[in-house]
């Protein structure tokens, strides 16, 4: 079991260091020895409610078998009653990742976008973005979206940067009815703005493109169908480009695939937000199946090890690309990561909207 993978420090080192009791300071010292200058970024208490760092809390959740937010606060001596808006979502995330089958997701510990499976807007209305697997849609889906937009007087219909169609300005009371209508048309939605899998952008790939080298669209669809619904420390954007011309802009996504004649280059750690960061190369494989496995494995590694609200590029800066690559390259570790991802998905790969939606027959 990886104890503190997020800093690339081995289990043995940590266990030796923390054998005597409270560990934060000792871990910092070990890190100072191990990482040199990186100690400037040493963990502090995760918020004013506790002096424990994110890393300590996560380690203690594992080693002490803590399985609820109140248990964590009780056992680790939280200084506040009920935590705060900073630690509660982090604890909820750490618990659901650690105990996907036992832990009951705590809606009251979620930011509004995850709690309502949508994105709150400035006037308290919401946006709704139906999934189009890999960006591919159909005339029937376009009509269903058009119908929903008119039925609920949506003030703006807009194509999104994630290759989807957004309905903006939806009233909260309309959400369950709209979900039901879109479900009835065969679409799942929600999570378009979550700290979880967003969309998998694709280019048209070799099925249509004169320079495409692999079928990037179908790989993107396959990845999105496998990964949707999963919660991650922060938003997770994927892209699959059919050739190095990179029309899906895969190299500024959290995880990208760039197809080449010989197969698939998998890259991680890109961003195009406050800063622009180009991905770095993680692995290459001639096999689409292996490409999928690598992506699931690195996603699970990120889920299990990154600090809440760290994007992959930030986690990579702490954990080190070499350490990440070593986990993914080891066949047993990779297979175990994929298996744990699938166990979690057995709970979370489901349409939360369908649970909450109101049959449209009863509506309005």
């Amino acid at each position, binding site marked *: 079991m990886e104890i503190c993978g997020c800093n690339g420090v081995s289990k043995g080192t940590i266990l030796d260091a923390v054998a005597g009791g409270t560990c934060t300071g000792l871990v910092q010292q070990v890190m100072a020895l191990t990482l040199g200058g990186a100690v400037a970024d040493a963990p502090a208490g995760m918020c004013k409610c506790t002096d424990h760092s994110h890393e300590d809390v996560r380690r203690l959740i594992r080693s002490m078998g803590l399985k609820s937010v109140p248990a964590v606060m009780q056992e680790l001596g939280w200084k*506040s*009653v*009920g*935590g*705060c*808006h900073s630690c*509660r*979502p982090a604890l909820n995330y750490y618990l659901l990742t650690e105990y996907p089958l036992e832990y009951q997701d705590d*809606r*009251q*510990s*979620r*930011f*509004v976008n995850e*709690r*309502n499976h949508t994105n*709150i807007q*400035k*006037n*308290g209305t919401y946006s709704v973005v139906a999934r189009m697997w890999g960006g591919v849609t159909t005339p029937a889906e376009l009509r269903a979206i058009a119908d929903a937009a008119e039925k609920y007087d949506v003030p703006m219909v807009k194509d999104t940067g994630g290759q989807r169609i957004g309905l903006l300005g939806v009233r909260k*009371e309309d959400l369950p009815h709209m979900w039901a209508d879109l479900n009835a048309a065969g679409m799942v939605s929600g999570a378009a703005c979550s700290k979880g899998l967003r969309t998998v952008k694709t280019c048209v790939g070799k099925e249509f493109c004169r320079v495409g080298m692999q079928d990037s669209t179908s790989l993107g669809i396959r990845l999105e169908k496998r990964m949707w619904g999963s919660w991650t420390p922060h938003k997770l954007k994927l892209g699959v480009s059919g050739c190095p011309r990179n029309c899906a802009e895969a190299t500024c996504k959290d995880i990208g695939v760039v197809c080449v004649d010989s197969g698939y280059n998998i890259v991680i750690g890109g961003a195009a937000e406050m800063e622009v960061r180009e991905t770095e190369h993680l692995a290459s494989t001639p096999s689409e199946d292996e490409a999928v496995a690598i992506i699931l494995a690195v996603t699970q590694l990120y889920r299990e090890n990154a600090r809440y609200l760290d994007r992959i590029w930030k986690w990579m800066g702490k954990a080190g690309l070499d350490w990440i690559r070593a986990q993914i390259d080891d066949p047993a570790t990779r297979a175990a990561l994929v298996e744990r991802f699938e166990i979690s998905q057995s709970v979370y790969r489901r349409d939360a909207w369908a649970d909450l939606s109101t049959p449209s027959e009863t509506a309005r």
Partner: protein
Amino acid sequence: MTIFVDIGSLDDIPRQGARLFKTAGGCVAVFRTMDDQVFALEDRCPHKGGPLSEGIVHGTSVTCPLHNWVFDMNSGAAQGADKGRVRTYPVRVQGGRILLDATLIRTRSAA
């Protein structure tokens, strides 16, 4: 003298959750803490109008979902560096029922 009116059951609100009540005076957000205290606030952050009923409840505070301003629900005052105050209303729990200041309730419907 404040007259209180029964607006619903405490069990209708999840712990650390909120429920919105529409009144003639605007939307009132009623919050329930982990230890079953109840607070009633205007559902409108004084900063940018965010719906506080969608915020995270912690202790006797609530965090606005739009920009993370934190309000003490006892006083309605913004905490930390932020300046502002959200209106609070008299509310009490009696026999598992939530009682709200009747002057707020001319027409009332649970949202």
